[in-house]
């Protein structure tokens, strides 16, 4: 538990800093970047009339992902940087996909399920890219609750998360 406090504090500090950066111009630059990059992509996949920016409040989901990747202790530098790059790219793809959901759901409010997935995406990508550490956290949590610790990183481990049995 004591180890969790500095990690949590680090997460809050990084999140505040990144949010400030986002507020102070980051989101404008990202919006411009998206507006220049997205239309050709939408054209290429047959959605030329898709609107860019309908979900701009959701674009901030890169902040918790970056925060989690940066504060996760025990990740090797290569995993951290590679995970950040891969995750941010997938979030960008997610933003592109999120804009398309507006076409099939023309309500005044944002479609519920895409918003839900968009908000969960940073967490899911963190699990994916920080798995060497996340799996140990899961295993140590099981161990601390009175169970033997296992390394669930191997595909054959029956205690590994994801096996709903």
């Amino acid at each position: 538990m004591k180890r969790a406090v500095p990690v949590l504090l680090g997460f809050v500090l990084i999140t505040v800093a990144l949010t400030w950066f986002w507020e102070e111009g980051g989101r404008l630059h990202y919006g411009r970047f998206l507006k220049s990059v997205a239309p050709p992509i939408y054209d290429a996949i047959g959605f030329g009339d898709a609107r860019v920016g309908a979900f701009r409040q959701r674009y901030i989901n890169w902040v918790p992902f970056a925060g989690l990747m940066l504060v996760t202790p025990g990740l090797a530098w290569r995993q951290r940087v590679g995970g950040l790059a891969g995750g941010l790219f997938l979030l960008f793809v997610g933003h592109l996909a999120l804009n398309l959901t507006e076409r099939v759901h023309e309500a005044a409010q944002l479609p519920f399920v895409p918003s839900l997935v968009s908000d969960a995406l940073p967490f899911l990508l963190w699990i994916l890219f920080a798995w060497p550490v996340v799996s140990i956290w899961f295993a140590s949590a099981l161990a601390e609750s009175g169970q033997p610790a296992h390394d669930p990183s191997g595909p054959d481990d029956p205690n590994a998360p994801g096996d709903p049995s």
Partner: protein
Amino acid sequence: MSDPSDGETPLTPPGPPEPRAIDTARRLWANPQIRYPLLVLVYLLAIGSVFNASLASLRGPLESLSAWTAASVHVFLRVFTEATTLRGHLVTFDGFAVSIIIECVGLLEMLIYSACVLAFPAPIRTRATGVVLGCVAIFVFNLLRIVTLLLVGRYQNDYFDFFHVYFWQATLIAMIVGVLYGWIRIFVRR
């Protein structure tokens, strides 16, 4: 094609070879690093779709939930100060008012957290306990979030939007991770 009889070892066992796509899917599914996030996503889509489909019939309970959230914030503030009022979904603190709408009750967080718990390899009763208690914990965290917003709105109004729209949305993941980790530590039994 070589003939096994000429002394070479055959590269593949006899029988029809498995299609490559199925084989790849099986290998990916066997890897918990892929399986757990995918399962969470499947549960999330299922829960979200069911919830979305029944939104019309849930309108009454959801209205009650936001009214109850507003009342809880008011009661919590009353422990520390008299400068708070409650009218329906509207809570005020020393003249600064917030209206608690359905988006403010932590529902998204609860649904994401529930999908994470349901996808976790634990007995069904443990998962059910995790969903119920975790949602209660998220509700409490959400009360603290609203109280913080009231304080920020009252004393640092310029930062209200920052905290409301961006900061708390970014930290909702920390809330989910924290409650999930707590559930695993306290309740998960093999």
